[in-house]
């Protein structure tokens, strides 16, 4: 089964890069949705034996990360009638290179860290890379929605790392995580909706009224 896991993780990296490289919001959201699906499959792929816990976890993950949130985001962009990210602070090529660097860094750091043997060796590097790429998207994009996407990727990366702990960290935790992400993005969505109504755009760079 390890090989499938590795394959899935590879795909995760590809989705990361897809988000980094595409200017169309729709594509970004689809990529994140795909990533959510992969994340949902991973517990099953990693698990030595299928417990209720594992199945429930993957099911819940798929529902939330691959279905609910993406649909919600798609609804939001339809509401806001935004198509694409207009000039990001860092160009797409540049951010792709950054992303590649992030992946490399992820592997570099992971090799230094004493990774617990239980986990799939590629898991930690990919997790770190995803976290970093999420941060990159958060810091370099302008549209509020894109930043939400970035935040989702950040959470996904953390979730990936959490997978190394499926044995030790109790079940409640994942639930908490999912709930929090859900609540988080849900409220963020409402805010996004309000931003859209107040400013007729989701360009968060309009939100610079409060300053010193």
């Amino acid at each position: 089964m390890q090989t499938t896991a590795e394959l899935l993780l590879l795909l995760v990296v590809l989705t990361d890069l897809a988000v980094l490289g595409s200017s169309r919001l729709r594509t970004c959201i689809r990529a994140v949705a795909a990533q959510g699906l992969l994340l949902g499959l991973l517990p099953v792929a990693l698990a030595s034996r299928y417990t209720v816990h594992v199945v429930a976890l993957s099911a819940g993950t798929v529902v939330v990360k691959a279905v609910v949130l993406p649909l919600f985001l798609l609804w939001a962009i339809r509401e806001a009638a935004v198509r694409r990210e207009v000039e990001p602070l860092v160009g797409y090529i540049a951010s792709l290179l950054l992303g590649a660097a992030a992946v490399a860094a992820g592997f570099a750091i992971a090799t230094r860290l004493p990774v617990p043997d239980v986990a799939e060796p590629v898991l930690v590097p990919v997790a770190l890379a995803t976290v970093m790429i999420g941060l990159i998207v958060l810091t370099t994009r302008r549209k509020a929605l894109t930043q939400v996407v970035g935040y989702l990727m950040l959470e996904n990366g953390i979730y990936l790392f959490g997978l190394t702990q499926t044995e030790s960290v109790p079940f409640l935790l994942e639930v908490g995580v999912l709930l929090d992400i859900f609540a988080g993005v849900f409220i963020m969505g409402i805010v996004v909706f309000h931003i859209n109504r107040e400013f007729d755009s989701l360009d968060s760079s309009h939100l610079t009224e409060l300053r010193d």
Partner: protein
Amino acid sequence: MRLIVLWLVPAIAALATGLVPSPRVTRWRVAVLVGAAALHLGVTVSLWSSPGESALNGWLGDDPLGLLVLTLVSTLFFVAATYTVGYLRRATPRGGRVFVSGLLGFLAATTLVALSQHLALLWVGLEATTFTVAPLIFHRHDRRSLEAVWKYLVISSVGIALALLGIFFLATAQHGVPGNPLILGDLLAHAGELQPMWLRAAFLFLLVGFGTKMGLAPMHTWKPDTYGEAPALVGGLMAGGLTSCAFLGVARITEVTMRAGLGPFVQPLLIAFGLVSLATAAVFILGQGDLKRLLAYSSVEHMGLLVLGLGLGGVGAYGTVLHLINNGLAKGWLFLVAGNVVLATGTSAASGTRGLIRTLPASGILLVMGLFAVTGSPPFGPFLSEFTILRAAVGGGHVWVAAIMLFLLAAIFVGMAVLVLGMALGEPATDAPAERESAWLLAGPIALAGLVLLLGLYIPAPLQRALAHAATALGGGAP
């Protein structure tokens, strides 16, 4: 049992006030709010008589530090609840349904943080605070408050996410170590066996993550916007209660790392963050033009002092814990007074506001007293704690840290004095007669002021014991 009650009371009240759909009738909601707050405070006080309970097989407990934070939050919340009575009479766009239930939800979340002995649970609590507070910040429903809540949500969500990563690292560090995962007691018991590299990484991420929630520079950027736009009493609850809970998170992981003997690695970081926060606060306080933003930066300053004391160790730890209480109460006091000013003048901008002690005698005087209290002038409480932290700096041989700290404190004092005294003194623009202020709006600040003053002159023995315990837990000791 009481611990469960403590958590359930506000949670249920929050649901009740939130779900029951009667948008207009605020009276019973406020009643529920005050009632829940009173009950909460009562139970909290009862904990002092016989501490050491635990519930949910050790996930909840009231160790000295947690109990201190819990008491602080509970006190603040009760005061804020009484204040809400007057506040909702004066200024509320709608029935206060979201407002009240948000407040109660906040109380539930912070209680969870203060009581949780399980670090993941603590994290969940902190995360919950973020989302319970958001609607409160958005209370005014206008562009500015929208921008504020947006920035607050994104920044603190990112922070909390990094904290979660830190929690996972901690769990990884605990791999193969006996004891239940992420239970504080077990972590401390076997701190020596934790995998040091992962422990360090965990500390870094938790410091950044919870530091963001605390508002340590440079992760403080949400603070002025949020406090500036949120209703004053929400600002007070956040600056006094929420930041204290976030600090509790930092304190927990510091406990573990200190116990694991990583002090030399940890302390420079804490000191650095402390000084950077002080410096940032000073820069933005000099020439600040808005009272609530000023208080926000003052909060950044005091968060800096907290971690500074933690990093200096020794009596510094004691000073930090004491300062946690003092700062919480003083911030509540000042924010509520600022709320009165805003209610009376309609703005918290300094320009154009003059002679408050003539137009608004009680609040004006409270404001000026608060200035001295929060800048660490004797005989108010913060003086003792700041003095103790300074003793740790000088006594520990960190003379330069002490020098920088003093310089920044002096600059901050002058900056704050310029703005606050400028508003309080002088000839009022309008020669309207001094207006009579509602008792509901004054009782809270006066009570807090009394407490802060008391803590400067006398520390009750039980409190003293709790402070000493907490200080020793943080690797320091009582002076």
